[in-house]
């Protein structure tokens, strides 16, 4: 026991080391039951030696955002369009574990509190998931619909030369304004900090506001700012905080407030653009001079999945045109499937989001949301903004 304690004090422990140590103290049996099984890379086995799909246990577990198949928003349609083909092919009904944002998903996976076969993070977190050894590469030959996906976008799911993620849905982060009340002096993220609209602005409640401020202030790399740049962005946000009516956590909360004209300007995703268009509002989704921030989210497969072939069937279902048209028509998000019928959304939304424009995701019109190596430091500065 003394040896164990000495070892514990001498160095930092992994979760499993700590569990072993506490086990010596008499509670390991319980703790071990709660710990994450250490999958290790490629724990799913070699593709050639993997059991056939009929021999897999099934009961696919999907770790995803709310409304992406679990039926939170459109119960029938989500099931029919996102995994109807999967169910037809395998007879299996997937179950869903939800997360509220990318960082929370990653944290849950790292802490071992989320078991999953398929996970759906966004591009700026891909590197983290691979480094965590929580995912394994896909075999794209098992996904017939893969050939329909935009090769430029699928390339963004390649990490260390392997297709760890299958990019599916994409969209933007840009200011949305009520054109009846707001007259921007220029197309810029600066509208989120415009003194003329005190009390009519909404920001998002995440540390993303740090890189938005960085973009506006013209830092070299808003996703990897130095301490001085972060301090400048923090001070700037604190000085503008008084203009903000509220910080939104759910995009729909922002939409409700935007619709009631409680706010006229906001950090927005494409879904709000679609809602505003459907409601007949006089809106404008800006193309700021700094560039819209673009995001793309993709499916990853758990390194220790026992449902290797089921996971591929599920990804194939997600890569289909019907899944793409569902995301377009119901959530106003882009999809990497290039054969989706854009007529499922109104021409106004197609134009506002540039869905028919092949250059809409290219720099400088758009800046890909990138991996933030010092996410924790960004959060620290953002906390200071909130606490100020």
């Amino acid at each position, binding site marked *: 026991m003394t040896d164990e304690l000495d070892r514990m004090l001498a160095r930092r422990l992994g979760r499993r080391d*700590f569990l072993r140590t506490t086990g010596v103290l008499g*509670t390991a049996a*319980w703790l071990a039951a709660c710990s994450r099984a250490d999958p290790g890379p490629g724990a799913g086995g070699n593709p050639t030696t993997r059991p056939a799909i009929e021999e897999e246990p099934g009961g696919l577990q999907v770790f995803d955002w709310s409304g992406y198949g679990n039926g939170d928003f459109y119960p029938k349609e989500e099931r029919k369009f996102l995994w109807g083909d999967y169910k037809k092919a395998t007879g299996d009904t997937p179950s869903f574990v939800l997360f509220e944002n990318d*960082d929370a998903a990653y*944290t849950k996976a790292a802490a071992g509190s989320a078991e999953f076969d398929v996970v759906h993070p966004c591009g700026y977190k891909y590197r983290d998931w691979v*480094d965590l050894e929580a995912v394994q590469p896909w075999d794209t030959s098992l996904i017939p619909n893969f050939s329909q996906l935009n090769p430029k976008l699928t390339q963004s799911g390649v990490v260390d030369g392997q297709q760890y993620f299958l990019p599916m849905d994409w969209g933007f982060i840009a200011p949305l304004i009520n054109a009846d009340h707001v007259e921007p002096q220029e197309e810029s993220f600066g509208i989120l900090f415009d003194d003329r609209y005190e009390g009519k602005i909404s920001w998002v409640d995440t540390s993303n506001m740090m890189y938005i401020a960085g973009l506006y202030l013209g830092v070299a790399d808003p996703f990897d700012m130095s301490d001085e740049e972060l301090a400048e962005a923090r001070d700037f946000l604190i000085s503008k905080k008084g203009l903000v009516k*509220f910080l939104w956590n759910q995009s729909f909360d922002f939409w409700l407030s935007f619709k*009631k004209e409680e706010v006229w300007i906001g950090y927005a995703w494409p879904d709000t653009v679609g809602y505003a268009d459907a409601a007949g509002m006089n809106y404008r989704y800006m193309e700021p001079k700094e560039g819209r921030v673009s995001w793309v989210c993709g499916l990853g497969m758990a390194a220790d999945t026992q449902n290797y072939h089921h996971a591929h069937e599920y990804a194939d279902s997600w890569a289909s045109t019907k899944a793409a048209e569902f995301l377009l028509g119901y959530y106003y998000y882009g999809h990497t499937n290039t054969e989706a019928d854009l007529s499922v959304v109104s021409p106004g939304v197609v134009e506002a989001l540039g869905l028919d424009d092949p250059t809409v995701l290219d720099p400088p019109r758009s800046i890909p949301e990138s991996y933030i190596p010092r996410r924790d430091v960004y*959060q620290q500065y953002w*906390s200071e903004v909130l606490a100020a």
Partner: protein
Amino acid sequence: MAEPDVTAARGWRRRERRLTVGLLSAPLLWLLIFFVVPVVYVAAYSVGAIELFPTDAGVVSLDDWRRFLTGGSVYMSLFWKSIRISLTVSVGVVLLSYPVGYFLALCVKKRKYVLLLLIIAPFLTSYLLRVLAWKVILGDQGVINSFLFWTNVRSPDDPITWLLYSQFTVMLVLAYIWIPFVALPIFVSLDNLDRSFLEAASDLGASRWRAFVRITLPLSLPGVFAAFLFVFIPTIGEFVTPLLVGGTSGYLYGNAITDLFTRGLDWQTGSVLALFLLLVIAAVMAIFGRFVQVRSVAG
């Protein structure tokens, strides 16, 4: 004759001891597994003894504790902000609830428990719903502003905007949420009051006010302290209400802990904050424990 009696007494004590150990072992085991071990875990995280993320490459150190305790981070000032809000809410709620408890316990003769149930009734509905209901009431186009527009007190272009998304909103909603918790112990302590003291005071010529100050209030203080604690302790770490109605100025210590464990990817600092809060609450309990007797507030 004495020998069998002693043996029987010993046997009885042994059985009683076994029974006590048997009855206590389950809750103690529960406490060990679901409280003590997690706290040890959090303590280990707080000094960096457990590695969670691949980027967590460092050594065991007290740096995060030192930075927090010496005010090197924003979190200590956030803690004091939470204490200030929590104190304001707790004192306000106790002051509001005392007359209610007094009225129910000492003035109402019939159906006092029906009335008490009415006060507690909101507590039987969802916490989230009760908080969200305030958004409907306090919004720019909410019940209050709409009434002001209707009465021409305010123009629709000029609603009262600080009603929602402010520190005021956080305090108002917290007060509303916790009133049932406060009214109950105050009511119980006043209901248990020995009325003969009040009769004696009256017989000796004391005014009602003097009887209240000298008898009723001192005897109900354990209930008041308990009520205060029932609000003060949970609201220090509160994060849901500030998140929903706090806006940019309602961010509290509890929100910082949540963010550090989720979006912040910084479990070490989060653990420091969580453990510090636990220690503060333990200290508060220890200080107030001597004023609060469970029997006096439990009926």
